[in-house]
């Protein structure tokens, strides 16, 4: 399957859900804003399903930019599901996935959350502090 056949996935942000954009041609996933929906499983389902299709013929390098302001524990598990899909892609020969985890200066909770994912997953993480 040609990954170019996949359309760009774009989900607009709300006051409870993040902006999501995954451009299969560029191999770049953006996840930004707050993720505090009551039903996180339902919200993340389209992204998880989309990743299953992308994983059939991913770009050589996939870059993931995560810049979350808040997320609830229900979302944290869904984000882990997303990262596990990316981990599977990273295991493929000649395929690479990098996760850029952005956190605000002094936000030790968000840094810790990124480090928790890093310790569970076998994907390169870059922790990027943003100045206020």
């Amino acid at each position, binding site marked *: 399957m040609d990954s170019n056949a996949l359309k760009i996935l774009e989900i607009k942000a709300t*006051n*409870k859900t993040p902006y999501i954009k995954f451009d299969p041609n560029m191999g770049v996933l953006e996840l930004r804003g707050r993720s*505090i929906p*009551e*039903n996180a*499983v*339902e919200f993340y389902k389209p992204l998880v399903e989309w990743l299953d299709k992308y994983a059939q013929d991913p770009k050589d390098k996939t870059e993931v930019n995560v810049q979350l302001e*808040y997320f*609830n*524990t*229900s979302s*944290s*598990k869904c984000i*882990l599901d997303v990262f596990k899909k990316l981990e599977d892609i990273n295991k493929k020969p000649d395929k690479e996935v990098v996760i850029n985890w952005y956190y*605000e200066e*002094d*936000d*030790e*909770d968000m840094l810790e959350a990124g480090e*928790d994912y890093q*310790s*569970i997953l076998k994907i390169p993480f870059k922790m990027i502090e943003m100045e206020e």
Partner: protein
Amino acid sequence: MLPILNKEHLSVLPEKLQEVIYSELDECGQGETYLRVDNFLPQTIDELLCDIENILSDVPKKIKKRTFNITVELIQNINLHATTSAPGHLSKYEKFGFYILCKMTNFVTRITTGNFVDKAVKNDIEYYLRYLKGLSAKQMKDLYFKIFELNHNYKGGGGLGFIDIAKKTNNNFNFKFINYNLELYLFIFNATVSIEKNKVYGQ
């Protein structure tokens, strides 16, 4: 009748419930207080979170973020887990509960929630929270990872929310169950967020 946003309007509630809420409000002392007694459906949660962000606009970012996060977990818990059979005339509200935020100072906030739970689930919640209170920081982290990697469902994170609250408050949380009638308990949960690290793990 709902929402109730002012303690002067609590008189419409059953006397026993009023006493509990007044008692929790007394704990706030002279601090700025936000009260909401409501039916905790998604629309209510949206409104409450908007109010909380405004109230926390002048506190340090770390306090604001932790208070907001804990608020999200607790009020979504009410939405997901509160009994649908609140007592008396409150039974018409599917997810009845209350929320109190006290800005004790600009560096300390106290969050309180209350909701009815069925007698059948009281022991499980109590056992779990007592267990968390007894954990060291390392044990808490280990449990967090264990639950984090389990499969989950739409009902939430399988107890992960309380662990997150314990971590964000350095285990500075308390709870009680008030026997309300033969079938119901009123579950009260308090969490204190402070910039200072209160080393109370394992006490």
